[in-house]
């Protein structure tokens, strides 16, 4: 998957959990959990959906690499099946 494809999937998935999330309005290094008020359940939901869509397992140890939109897209591109 290309970075653009992954970015679309990521934004789409985030919007399913936070409907008014707009990645274009925040810097790429913004803290996802804080900016979009994701609690631990939201985050698990996000991870679960992303994991299915890119076809790769995301472990709890990887959560630190999903801290910002830029980090997340980088991680997902690297791990996409």
């Amino acid at each position: 998957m290309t970075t653009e494809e992954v970015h679309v999937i990521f934004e789409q998935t985030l919007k399913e959990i936070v409907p008014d999330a707009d990645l274009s309005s925040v810097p790429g290094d913004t803290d996802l959990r804080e900016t979009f008020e994701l609690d631990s359940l939201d985050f698990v939901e996000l991870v679960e959906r992303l994991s299915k869509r890119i076809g790769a397992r995301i472990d709890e140890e990887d959560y630190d690499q999903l801290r910002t939109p830029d980090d997340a897209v980088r991680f997902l591109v690297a791990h996409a099946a």
Partner: protein
Amino acid sequence: MPEFRMPSLGADMESGRLLEWLVSPGDAVHRGDVVAVVDTDKAAIEVECFDDGVVSALLVQPGEKVPVGTALAAIGAPAPPAITEPGTITEPGASPGPAAAPLPSVDAVPGQRLATLPVPAVMPAPPAVTPLAPQGVSPLVRRLARQRGVDLTAVAAAVPGQVVHRADVERFCAAGPPARTSRVRASPLARRLAAASGVDLAGVPGTAEAGAVRAEDVYRALAGARPGPDASATGPALPAKRPSVPTAEPSTVPTAEPPTVPTAAAHAPSAAAQSHASGMRRAIAELVSRANREIPHYYVSTSIDMTAATQWLRARNRELDVSERIVPAALLLLCAARAAVAVPELNGHWVDGAFRPAATVDLGTVISLRGGGIMVPVIPDAANLTIDHVMAAVRDLVERARSGRLRASALTGASITVSNLGDQGVDAVFGVVYPPQVALVGFGAVRDRPWTVDGLLGVRPAVVASLAADHRASDGAVGARFLRHIDRLLQKPEEL
């Protein structure tokens, strides 16, 4: 014979507006069937029936606002099979006995109106329920679907995760002949995804057997093309409700229901959402004012070493599928529920100047809503659940609370409540007890803190557990015992 009454959906609720009937006179209903949608100040709530029988009369019309306890419908003996047309029966009909006029009176003695009706030996069977029909569909909708020759499963696919209402069937019929949907072969998940993301299934190349569209195909279509006019884009800028699409695999939800997803219509009424937001603020204000006026609170707190719990969770989550992952919050909920069994003085209600212990731990769970406000749905008998069930229950409740589709049964009767503000980054919570409950358990963030073990200073993950309790019902020593018990449970998570 029972009446179906406006339920109390929380200690703060005085009246509710009937939004929609999901049954009509003559319909057979069963305990647990969703029969109506009621609008409280906070949200639209699906209300279940508590009895088996046949709806003999609807006493309140949609749009009417009535006090809690008002009879909404009469549930009677099974009517003769002649009754087929909805809306024609206004009284318990040909039944013998003094059937009073079915007025929506508040002061009617429960059951009196229908008390003389003959009790049937056998309850009527529900009208030809398709075994594959989606759950929670009311008899009225089933009948309508049958009349129009519509496959309810197809309607449900177009109304992802939502309970199918009459309007959905009508919209489905209006949208085009059923043949259109049957032409595109697609998995239920693919249909839900397509509906949720605004993708036209007809334009998605299917890769499954016989060219059927699978979920992956929809994802590919989404990734390949700019997403169409998706539901979220048209949502209100600051929704009080937070809709979301279904989990890809609803395997974590213990009930057989599809996950909750609002229809497109649910996004539109931002005015309703705003009115709920201000109504909710008012309701919260009233409740906490009463709590602080009536309840002499005391507070205790303790720091708990979370090393064992976090290690256990991590090891467990590493082995399991992502969808079965447990968050610390679920573990804390379960420990609080189990501790409430061990310290029953905190589990129950203060009524008429005395404490009444509850038989089970019905755990209220504070869920904060995007855009402000809280809902406090209940996990019934939480102490007897496994950790997986608690996790599934809390995920389900959060999803429902935020999409505004909580069931009435999930909002009533908490015996103790937990507020976890750990995700908001606070160290500790000192809450307000929800009357008539007598205790509120608080958890802060699980974070690394300096910790002494055997005279040496180390760093350990820790959480501050706190308790706000009603001093009329218990004393500080009881609260301390409760928190110690939570601590003990968290040191041996594998035994939970």
